[in-house]
């Protein structure tokens, strides 16, 4: 059996990638608590498996697969925990809520691309790798997402 990562290594990965993965998971599930649960289970699993070659990409792919499984097994109309997943700077609480609302209104593929690019800090190549799509497709999804967000946020900004 392969030696798993140590607790310290797992905690370090969680500290580094936890917020981005949670934002990504929440954008997929629309449920903050469910996304947190997915993360907890995934990081516990890391204790028993060999260290992935590219931890960041592995973690995003794993979160995506787990979220898709949750969505398949638990198809519901409304999210149970639509908690705010963005931290708003002082005086921008209202604007932050508008951003969250606008992101929720994007089509799922565009939402995924924009969350990964803006709040997870991924390159378009990384997004394409995680989603297993061509780079051009990732780029166009992102471009469409920005266009739509611009329209939705016009009044707020």
């Amino acid at each position, binding site marked *: 059996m392969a030696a798993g990562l140590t607790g310290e290594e797992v905690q370090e990965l969680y500290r580094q990638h*936890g917020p981005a993965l949670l934002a990504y998971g929440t954008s997929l599930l629309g449920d903050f608590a469910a*996304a947190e649960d997915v993360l907890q289970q995934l990081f516990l699993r890391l204790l028993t498996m060999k260290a992935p070659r590219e931890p960041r990409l592995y973690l995003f792919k794993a979160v995506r697969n787990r979220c898709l499984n949750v969505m398949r097994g638990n198809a519901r109309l409304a999210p149970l925990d639509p908690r705010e997943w963005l931290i708003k700077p002082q005086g921008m609480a209202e604007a932050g809520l508008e951003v969250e609302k606008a992101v929720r209104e994007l089509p799922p593929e565009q939402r995924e691309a924009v969350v990964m690019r803006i709040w997870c800090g991924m390159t378009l190549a990384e997004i394409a790798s995680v989603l297993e799509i061509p780079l051009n497709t990732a780029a166009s999804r992102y471009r469409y997402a920005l266009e739509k967000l611009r329209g939705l946020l016009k009044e707020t900004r």
Partner: protein
Amino acid sequence: MNPDRDDEKLESYLRQFHARAPRPLVLHQPRRLFRPLAVIAATAAALLIALVFLFPGWRRQGAQTFVVPEAGPIAKEISFARLSRFARQSPDKLEEHLNELSARTLPDVRAGQGVLKRLARE
């Protein structure tokens, strides 16, 4: 109007908001927990063995006591001490006494229809 410039402005606006951190990760590490448990179990076992050897009386106190049933009159008669005493006091009557005792304790090979009777005949 430059669309790339517009994209950059929108991106920097969106990046003012940061992703919220998840709740702290609670790791249960059963494999690492096993080692201290094994050490505790081994220490407890060693301590118990040491106690048993250092305080043998403690073991007897705690041990279950069995009540030995009272020996019957024949069992008393055929005890080694009693037979030795009998042999010293009246050696001439020892054989007769043993015959009498064996007739009372051993099965009669001539009685009944069992295997012993058939063997006695042969």
